[in-house]
């Protein structure tokens, strides 16, 4: 039996009819066409589906859409301001933190949550912070460098 929920995604409010068995990942991709959030493992192990829920990174594949009712959701689409990239996105471009791009949205959102809480992380803290985001391409070195670069002059509102 479908229920009506209210999702606040990237600052916009959507009133949606959802089947209770839908995950937030499915609703974002299939009902809202926000395909920046990726389905990797679908079981909370890879982090490709990471979104921010009230500022905290979660695996959207393990969140029932009904549980996201009324929460503030940030997807990768919510970071850039038109053509103007978020500083973390710029850092990933400049420091080769992206290869195939599949892990990137989840990785950047996790990095955003990390820097919002700890604007000057050590390399160890970065590694611990992104432990839930797997990358099969880069070997993580450039990702860590990108996050480290983004942390210089980082401010929560995004420059």
């Amino acid at each position, binding site marked *: 039996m479908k229920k009506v929920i209210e999702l606040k995604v990237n600052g916009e409010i959507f009133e949606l009819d959802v089947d209770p068995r839908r995950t937030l990942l499915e609703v974002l991709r299939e009902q809202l066409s926000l395909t920046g959030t990726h389905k990797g493992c679908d079981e909370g*192990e890879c982090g490709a589906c990471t979104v921010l829920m009230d500022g905290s990174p979660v695996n959207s594949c393990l969140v029932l859409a009904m*549980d996201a009712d009324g929460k503030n959701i940030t997807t990768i689409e919510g970071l850039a301001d038109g053509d103007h990239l978020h500083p973390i996105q710029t850092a990933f471009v400049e420091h080769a933190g992206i290869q195939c791009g599949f892990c990137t949205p989840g990785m950047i959102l996790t990095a955003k949550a990390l820097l919002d809480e700890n604007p000057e992380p050590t390399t160890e803290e970065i590694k*611990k912070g992104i*432990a839930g985001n797997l990358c099969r391409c880069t070997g993580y070195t450039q990702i860590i460098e990108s996050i480290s670069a983004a942390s210089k002059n980082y401010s929560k509102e995004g420059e």
Partner: protein
Amino acid sequence: MTLYLKRLPKIEYLEPESVNEACLLLRQYNGEAKVIAGGTDLLIQMKNRALTPKYLINLKKISGLGEIIYSDTNGLRIGSAVKLRAIESSPLVKEKFTALFEAACNMASIQIRNLATIGGNLCNALPSADTAPPLLALDAKLKLIGVDGERIVPIKDFFKGPGETVLNSSEILTEIQIDEPPSFSGSTYIKYTLRNAMDLARVGVAVFIKLNPSDGKCEDVRIALSACAPTPIRVEKTEKVLIGSSLTDETIAEASEVACDESECRIDSFRVPVDYREELIKVLTKRAIRNTVKTIGGTS
């Protein structure tokens, strides 16, 4: 072992506003309903069709289940729906109930810890459940509420087997209670994993020690293991070796041998061969005892 994940099966999502309502729903839909808090274990089990409840009973709208309450008279009360991330982020838990903090820090990933709950970890009852050994070492009590009333169960008596607890079909774990730790005591949890993160414990050891401040001898000790038996276990014969002793290297070594004997893993498991696990238990028990003693102020 997960071979293939599907989309979730059809469910009805029920959202009671009280524990009593939730228990009544469990009884009403006997066998066809499961409670859900974080859902990080349950939803995976449903995606691979290991479990297919028709009704999910959401615990997240019930007030009181998500709180950490502390007083130095009553000790710590953790609501069963408290997220692992909240436990990891609590300076109070880090300082006074250190083993539990150390367990929470090393579970899964931040994304999971932002959803998963301590109650879920306990009720899912894997032998490797990381919050269990610290709570066993801290001698926690669990509050269970069902349609017939409530009862307090010492955590020692909570686990029956892999994935099995003493919860009856209408009961819900609502609270974890830990007494204020005595002075000159401390606790640690060591989780041994092959990966640096995102791994189940191959062996986990939690230790609680209280020292006598005047002679540094061990006045009280509790040791618990994860992933070494069908359930998380206390190793009480090991504890007896240490109580009253001066915790010399010899005594600690003897205790680690007893801990290895007391654990119940006689077969090679998928994750760890027997002889490696036995060696790990010995090494980690010694290490956990020494680390715990170091954290206690005063003589040692």
